[in-house]
């Protein structure tokens, strides 16, 4: 069973294009998807899943199950960075630990989308409101990361990673802007709201958006994963810098967080598809919103640490191995609805 899931995942177009990108770097091809085309794909994917999620949310409404799931998701995005911070700080110092912790508390929209596309392949249904959970999990972890770094610094525990300017108070306006008004978070939430409004007030608009947001989606995802393969493989060259401890963390963290996610999903009584998505949200780490936010709010953290772990290790792990693995767990522990 499990090996079938793995194969179904490995032989899907998005994952194959991801491998093609990795292969290009490994073999030394000069294939490149020049900037800002990856940004076009990433803006498109955020707009499209936001809009679709909003449409589905408007159909399902905000029932107690929806609200409970979203609350649990936000809780995860607070607990994961706090616990990760304490695990990482002894080795990395407060700044680096805070930044890596923020990355793992936050989410990866592309991993989520790949999981949705995997659920389509294995024909397991899932609910649209999970996109709302996705949208609301990006920001809290960023705030937690900055707060942890500042608290540690203010206790006059200088981090080995360099001066952390800790005596200054937390620059709340900047932190909140980076957390909640970050371009990708803002576009995702904005599209979610627009999708909801359009579905409610002018349903014919949803139909007119479909060729764009639905039909193209799979192809653009393949294109973007090709680029993600290129970028992730380039990151692997930096692995020497990260050291074995962070490599182990980058593989262990998603498994542990997915497992916690599974327990919560079970507690909430989520159906199989939603449970997988909840696990993937818990397991994935951010390389979009978080690096940009950390660069400005925890500038003395080393970007190559949090980008390499989140994008070079955890992302490929989740996309290639994690998703089918979590699905196997779901099939074992979550009853069919």
């Amino acid at each position, binding site marked *: 069973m499990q090996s079938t899931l793995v194969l179904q995942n490995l032989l899907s177009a998005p994952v194959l294009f991801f491998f093609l990108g990795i292969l290009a770097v490994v073999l030394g091809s000069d294939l490149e998807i020049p900037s*800002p085309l990856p940004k076009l794909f990433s803006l498109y994917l955020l707009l499209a899943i936001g809009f679709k999620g909003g449409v589905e949310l408007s159909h399902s409404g905000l029932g107690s199950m929806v609200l409970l799931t979203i609350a649990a998701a936000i809780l995860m995005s607070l607990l994961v960075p706090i616990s990760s911070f304490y695990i990482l700080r002894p080795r990395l110092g407060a700044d680096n630990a805070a930044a890596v912790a923020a990355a793992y508390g936050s989410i990866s929209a592309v991993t989520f989308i790949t999981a949705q596309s995997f659920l389509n392949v294995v024909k397991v249904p899932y609910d649209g409101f999970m996109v709302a959970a996705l949208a609301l999990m990006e920001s809290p972890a960023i705030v937690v990361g900055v707060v942890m770094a500042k608290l540690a610094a203010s206790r006059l525990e200088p981090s080995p990673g360099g001066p952390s300017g800790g005596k200054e108070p937390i620059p709340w306006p900047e932190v909140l802007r980076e957390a909640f008004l970050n371009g990708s978070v803002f576009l995702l939430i904005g599209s979610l709201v627009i999708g909801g409004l359009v579905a409610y007030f002018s349903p014919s608009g949803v139909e007119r958006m479909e060729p764009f947001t639905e039909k193209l989606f799979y192809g653009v995802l393949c294109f973007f994963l090709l680029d993600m393969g290129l970028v992730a493989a380039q990151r692997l060259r930096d692995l020497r810098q990260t050291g074995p401890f962070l490599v182990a963390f980058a593989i262990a963290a998603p498994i542990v967080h997915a497992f916690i996610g599974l327990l919560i999903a079970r507690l909430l009584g989520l159906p199989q598809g939603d449970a997988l998505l909840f696990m993937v949200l818990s397991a994935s780490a951010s390389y979009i919103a978080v690096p*940009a936010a950390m660069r400005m709010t925890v500038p003395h953290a080393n970007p190559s640490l949090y980008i390499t772990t989140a994008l070079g290790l955890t992302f490929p792990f989740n996309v290639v191995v994690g998703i089918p693995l979590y699905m196997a767990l779901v099939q074992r522990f979550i009853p069919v609805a």
Partner: protein
Amino acid sequence: MKRVDFFVSEREIERLCKAIRQAGAPGYSVMRHVTGWGVAGEISEAMDFSGLGANAHVVVFCDADAIAALQGVVRPLLERFGGVGFVSEAEKF
């Protein structure tokens, strides 16, 4: 007249330009999408999709007297967020 070249992260452009205006420089030019290598290692355009961006090259031509003011406002930024600056001689065309 002096020419000052800054290389900073694209995310610091706005802060840097504000500081330059504050220092009373008569103008500046900004080139984005600059990649490079320095103390902080290699900066590529690969993370551009994430909003992290690459580096920017900011050029300021100003009077020699303005350099001190510029150093006053810009050096703290370079120290806090990284980046480098260089000065050379120039004259109006």
